[in-house]
């Protein structure tokens, strides 16, 4: 058990160090976030709350696809063999899931900030929405991490991740939109806790599936 945690920590540290030293991925995605939201602002101005909410989650979706896609692209096959021999498949996928979740939460919070800055601030319950945004970023990153693992094995291209991913992400997007709608109105709507729990349950399901299925992708 502790060996597992050490492996995961080591792999995480490797990923974070690569990010800090290369700085290409992190700043690239940050720039992508900023440009997209800026273009959106120029196109839409300051929309009202339901449109704001919808646009926000759509932008999150595209940011997630881009942010997570790179995570499996970087490794050459020789290096993958090396990781295969020193750490188990389970530790590897867990470290990727954790790293991408962290990255995505950071990106989500940044885009929330930019949205509120540029596109008006129709939020009535900002802290609730921020919590939902963190949960949403986490959920989206889980599914897309596993899908980019699949797409990395198939003939890798960015369109493949979107094709595979968008139908599967729909239940989470629907849940997120309903949960986040709560933050816009003054009236407390029922079902908030239930839907958040359902979303968390769905996330746990995705994590469990990823851990069980990744070893089959790993072998080549």
């Amino acid at each position, binding site marked *: 058990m502790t060996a597992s945690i050490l492996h995961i920590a080591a792999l995480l540290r490797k990923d974070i160090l690569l990010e800090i030293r290369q700085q290409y991925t992190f700043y690239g995605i940050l720039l992508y976030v900023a440009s997209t939201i800026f273009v959106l602002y120029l196109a839409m101005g300051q929309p009202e709350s339901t449109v704001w909410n919808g646009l926000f989650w759509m932008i999150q979706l595209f940011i997630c696809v881009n942010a997570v896609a790179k995570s499996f692209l970087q490794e050459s096959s020789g290096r993958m063999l090396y990781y295969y021999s020193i750490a188990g498949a389970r530790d590897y996928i867990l470290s990727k899931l954790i790293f991408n979740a962290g990255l995505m939460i950071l990106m989500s919070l940044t885009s929330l900030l930019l949205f509120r800055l540029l596109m008006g601030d129709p939020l009535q319950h900002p802290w609730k929405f921020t919590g939902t945004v963190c949960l949403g970023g986490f959920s989206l990153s889980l599914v897309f991490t596993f899908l980019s693992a*699949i797409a990395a094995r198939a003939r890798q291209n960015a369109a493949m991740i979107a*094709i*595979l991913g968008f139908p599967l992400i729909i*239940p989470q997007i*629907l849940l997120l939109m309903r949960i986040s709608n709560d933050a816009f109105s003054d009236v407390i709507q029922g079902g908030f806790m239930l839907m958040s729990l*359902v979303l968390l349950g769905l996330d746990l*399901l995705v994590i469990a*599936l990823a851990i069980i299925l990744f070893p*089959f*992708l790993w072998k080549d």
Partner: protein
Amino acid sequence: MRWWKFLTVALLLYTYIGGLLITVPDVGNLQHTIRNAFFHIPMWTTQFIVLTISLVYSIKYLRKPKINNDIYAFEFAKTGIVFGSLGLITGMEWANFTWGAAWSNDPKQLGVAIALLIYLAYFVLRNSMTDIDKRARISAVYNIFAYFIYIPMILILPRMVESLHPGGKGVEGNPGFNGNDLNTAMKWVIRPAYIGWALLGIWITTLRLRLHLYAEKNQIAV
């Protein structure tokens, strides 16, 4: 022909004839369109059963990489899509008359549209790879992943939100199986219908399988 093929024909004939002849309860504004239930609901159960069989063969492939398991999974997924589309079309026909419009953003309709997208993505994924073993392995993984996300979605979400379908928020019971419309003569027709349509789905798949396996053995494109 095997015995179950005769049974399929008999059950389906019984369903058609019985479905059109029995007296149906008068529920809401449905009147006689409720007879569509003998066709529309079994399309769903058949799709569900066939996609589950596809899942089983995908799992079998991952445990023992015989190429036949992959071919079975693929063909059952294909039939699942056909029945899903039929279920959607019969549903839209029915909705056109009773709900006013063919498409009304009902969660179950959305659910089937999503299912079609998921399994069409499965086919695109398969086509993107040419190495047979890799294709089989990766598509088996995707099949399992997609199934376990699809099933919670289709079973849980429609019950949580308001729905035009029976069994949405505020209505008790498992829609389609315990609805109070079915405590009548309808149950004598609909239960054999479930079995008959499911067997038809499996029959169609076995025919395609024979074709595919023959093509595989003689290296013809199918």
